[in-house]
């Protein structure tokens, strides 16, 4: 694998996480549990899709094969997506939406803080921008974790169930492969071991404040680094890519 190929893959990984999770949240637009939350999830979706757009643009430039940001978003198949399994999980009830978002926000908060120091100036700039936005997302979702965990018996049961179900997808957040190895040498990538220490600490703190227990002895699912996904992604892509495939080259 060349350095260039590694960088393209790295950008796709980051972009896909934001694009797929942003799309998931956008499914709630107009259907949020109440007005303020509808606006909040739509705002977060907008930030994530905006970040994905910049990252896809950069991936397309580095790749240099004449593909555009739209080609990358709408004309790749399921096995060519590198978003985490966590990002593609369905919204289900509000507790699942919030738990998925909180676990991701906590990761992104520390990840993008580290990426600001990247030797790749473009990624460092995108990280600086993204980190400011993620700070707001994390504050929002960590408060919800507390509210749901300490709320009623029903809300507590639901948020604990959500965490129990999603926990198996958190292991691969920190998985590193050849791409990371190559880019770590160049001081471009983030060492995910560093992120893991901070993530563990923050998640434990928020869970403790919320009366949520950390699941134990969970078998961790993996595969997204090689483009292997849960069955959820295919359905999402079918909807997200439909317009572009039905009307090739269509523009907003």
């Amino acid at each position, binding site marked *: 694998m060349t350095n260039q190929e590694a960088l393209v893959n790295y950008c796709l990984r980051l972009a896909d996480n934001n694009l797929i999770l942003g799309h998931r949240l956008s499914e709630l637009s107009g259907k949020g549990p109440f007005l303020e939350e509808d606006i909040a999830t739509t705002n977060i979706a*907008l*930030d994530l899709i905006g970040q994905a*757009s910049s990252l896809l643009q950069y991936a397309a430039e580095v790749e240099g094969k004449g593909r555009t940001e739209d080609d990358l978003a709408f004309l790749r198949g399921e096995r060519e997506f590198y978003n985490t399994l966590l990002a593609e999980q369905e919204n289900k009830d509000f507790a699942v939406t919030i738990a998925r978002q909180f676990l991701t926000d906590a990761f992104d908060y520390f990840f993008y803080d580290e990426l600001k120091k990247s030797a790749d100036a473009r990624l460092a*700039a995108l990280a*600086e*921008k*993204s980190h*400011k*936005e993620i700070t707001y997302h994390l*504050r929002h979702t960590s408060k919800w974790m507390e509210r749901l965990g300490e709320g009623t018996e029903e809300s507590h049961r639901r948020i604990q169930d959500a965490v129990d179900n999603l926990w198996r997808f958190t292991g691969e957040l920190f998985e590193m492969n050849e791409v990371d190895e190559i880019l770590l040498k160049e001081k471009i990538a983030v060492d995910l071991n560093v992120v893991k220490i901070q993530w563990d600490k923050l998640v434990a703190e928020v869970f403790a404040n919320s009366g949520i227990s950390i699941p134990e002895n969970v078998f961790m699912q993996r595969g997204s680094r090689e483009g292997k996904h849960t069955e959820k992604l295919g359905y999402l892509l079918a909807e997200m890519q439909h317009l572009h495939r039905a009307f090739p080259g269509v523009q907003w």
Partner: protein
Amino acid sequence: MELQTDHINQLLGQIPDPEIPVISIVELGVVRGVSMEGDKVIVTITPTYSGCPAMRTIEMDIFNKLKDEGFEHIEIRTVQSPAWTTDWMAEEAKEKLRAYGIAPPNEHINQRVRSILSDEVTHVQCPHCASWNTHLTSQFGSTACKALYKCDDCLEPFDYFKCI
């Protein structure tokens, strides 16, 4: 040359922000620079938020304005760094926001010294009755850059242009 960029800056100062039309895109701090390469005008802009849907409109507005003023070759470049901050907003712009019913961003407090999970430690003044007795309704508002507040004295809800 300098005269010309000054002139262009002045023209850009007449373009209102598409979402908050009482302030211009220059006052908002979105325009980062104007330069000339031969007879080509290069305007550099930066987004307030990554997904700000107004960016396309802003680009179009700049393009049309300069075209109308007789410029033939126009290039608009978008930069991400340094990342936009509410600190770039001009003081006069903050007054205009207040008059329009949007509480302007407070002085930026260094985010690093605060706990990750706590809210901004700020008191926001109601743009309607000037009371400081207000509370946050939601961190997210009608556009990416605003939060929702409510005044506990005049009971009016209002937008707060949040610090970033």
